[in-house]
């Protein structure tokens, strides 16, 4: 036994001689492409049509409809800027994982999606290129972006690190065969849900998410909050927030709402499609999925019901197009970026029906009136504070435990979330 350990230790000591000495330097090559100042420069003139070269565009692809919409948009780009050859390479598998290997190796696409939930981390760690010099040179108009979307992609230094490629607000989608008169307030929602309970073969009137993913919208609506206005302290452990969380939890307690998982569904879109629930709270991504998978189910949108806070409120999600700090064709990428997030490109893209415009000057795509109408007041649903993933996780874990233990007490949820928020803010 002793000999066994001794040999093993020796093995690793020997191995460490061969292994550890090159390791410090091996990080050097990956840092070589760190600088991100745009090339060209000097004269300050910016003529996008004179730029020619390749640009690699990457992202994930969440549905065939999304792929088609992007292809159409890129065709539009190619006809306007024939000198820039766009190479679209959607990444399979887990997007952040694949991107991590790309950052580490320096082999980064020129323009790529960055989800709001990790945008802050990627900006902080320097994986994205600041765009301010380009904005100045090209005169790109950033004022048209809805502030709820745009703010997420600005760094602590106040610079832009990406433009929101689109957005989505959370609204209420309901089965029109079952719900004739959509509720305007949260009280109406409860009354309606009570009358629907146990009818129409529904497993529950509402499909609800056991976390802040959608719960945050209800928290806001019912007068609760997560952070103080200056974003420096948690406010979830307050009476107002606790009441709001308890209200949300009571929807589960009283059988008015159920999670998609408990209905046997992957997400609430499936629940609406399979008629397990009559009312769900989702974003524009619901539409292509309903058309392709559940074409027979009739549904409509309405804005998020107004709660005790008295004013209309909801949350929104967004994704940016960003240029990598190590991207090789930054000029080409910025031309592509300004087309895709500009009025013309975004109009084409949002006509595909997958997402909403993140700019106010883009016409409302067909069938998206309700969702777009929320854009002006929606608050960010992710990416608004550092370490938000941990906060979401803390909330969801505690909330799930309360539901599954049938104790339905908001207290532990609120305190677990408060701890997570405080911890995240202190880092």
């Amino acid at each position, binding site marked *: 036994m002793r000999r066994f350990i001794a040999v093993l230790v020796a093995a690793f000591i020997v191995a460490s001689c061969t292994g550890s000495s090159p390791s410090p330097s091996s990080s050097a090559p990956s840092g070589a492409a760190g600088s991100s100042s745009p090339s060209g420069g000097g004269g300050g003139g910016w003529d996008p049509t004179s730029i020619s070269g390749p640009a690699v565009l990457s992202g994930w692809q969440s549905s065939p409809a999304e792929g088609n919409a992007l292809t159409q948009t890129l065709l539009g780009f190619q006809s306007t800027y024939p000198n820039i050859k766009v190479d679209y390479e959607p990444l399979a598998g887990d997007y952040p994982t694949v991107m991590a290997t790309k950052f580490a190796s320096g082999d980064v696409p020129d323009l790529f999606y960055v989800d709001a939930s990790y945008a802050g981390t990627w900006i902080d760690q320097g994986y994205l290129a600041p765009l301010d010099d380009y904005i100045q040179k090209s005169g790109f108009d950033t004022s048209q972006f809805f502030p709820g979307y745009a703010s997420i992609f600005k760094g602590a230094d106040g610079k832009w690190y990406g433009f929101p490629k689109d957005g989505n607000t959370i609204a209420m989608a309901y089965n029109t065969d079952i719900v004739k008169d959509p509720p305007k307030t949260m009280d109406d929602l409860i009354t309606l849900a009570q009358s629907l309970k146990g009818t129409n073969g529904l497993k529950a009137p509402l499909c609800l998410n056991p976390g802040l993913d959608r719960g945050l919208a209800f928290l806001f609506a019912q007068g609760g909050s997560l952070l103080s206005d200056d974003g420096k302290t948690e406010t979830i452990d307050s009476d107002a927030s606790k009441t709001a969380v308890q209200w949300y939890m009571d929807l589960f307690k009283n059988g008015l709402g159920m999670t998609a998982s408990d209905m046997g569904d992957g997400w609430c879109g*499936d629940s609406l499609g399979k008629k397990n629930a009559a009312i769900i709270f989702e974003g524009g991504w619901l539409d292509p999925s309903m058309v392709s998978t559940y074409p027979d189910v009739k549904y409509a949108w309405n804005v998020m019901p107004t709660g005790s806070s008295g004013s209309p409120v909801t949350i929104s999600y967004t994704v940016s197009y960003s240029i990598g700090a190590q991207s090789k064709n930054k000029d080409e990428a910025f031309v592509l970026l300004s087309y895709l997030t500009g009025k013309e490109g975004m109009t084409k893209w949002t006509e595909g029906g997958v997402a909403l415009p993140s700019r106010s000057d883009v016409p409302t795509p067909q069938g998206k009136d309700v969702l777009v109408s929320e854009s002006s007041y929606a608050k960010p649903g992710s990416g608004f504070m550092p370490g938000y993933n941990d906060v979401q996780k803390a909330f969801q874990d505690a909330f799930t435990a309360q539901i599954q233990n049938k104790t339905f007490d908001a207290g532990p949820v609120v305190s677990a979330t408060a701890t997570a928020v405080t911890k995240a803010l202190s880092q």
Partner: protein
Amino acid sequence: MVSQARRLGGAGTLAAPSAPPGRRRGRWLRALAYAILIAYAVVMFVPFAWSVITSFKTLPDSVRLSFIPQPFTLEGWHEAVQTLTPPLPLIFLNSFAIAGAVTLTNVVLGSLAGYAFARLRFPGRELLFLIVLGTLMMPDQLRVIPVYLILKTFGLTAGFGQYVGVVVVAAIAGTSIFFLRQYFLSIPRDLEEAARMDGAGFFTTFWRVMLPLATPAIAAVAILQFQGSWNSFFWPVILLQDNAKKTIPVALYTFRTLSSGFSTNWPPLMAVIVAATIPILILYIFFQRYFVEGLAASGVKG
């Protein structure tokens, strides 16, 4: 190959030590044995049958406990075939090519190294073998970034190199060496010594004498590695970034995450699962003897 495995097991020991004493009890035990076998076989079989049945159902029908789809529909299959990128034949080709290459390298490198660790004396042998064992204890997630950087240095993260990279990472598993070493240790030395006496070199002895004797173990390694590579998920997701190079598990994962959540549109999902399973099932039916006997005959010899 199989008969050789039997011979190798040692005089007659492979004949099943059955026929327990006591005739009446024997009959009881036999009935019990059959009950266990049949019950467990049903447990094995039902889920796969269920996935086949479900793939021909409509979505509302898919959650009903009925064994005949009503109505019978090909829509699930249609959707599966249409949505999968790249097309199914290419996905299979990728999976087969990669699994085949990984199997070959493991067999060749594993038997050479296994033999050396079992029989050849050279300074540092123990230490090197402990490194082999140490690799078994290391989770892939720990080394993904360093390994990716190394592969990148050799140009194995782009273009055709992606295939090479995925094979290199799995080219030789510590288990293959461990397994084959154990097997070589169990082969009597006499034959080998006779060959050496005749003046055969180390490689010739290995190639002419030892390798043929190790065929059951090699079959087992080949099967385990083929199966492992066929199922492999983590490295292909990272390393095979071109759409056209996806393997079956990667395509499955992508298919499930299409649409904004995890889809529970069961019929097409089950169609993909069935489609992913059929080739390995066919392979298994044809080579079942090697799969089962190979592993069984060469497994653990203390």
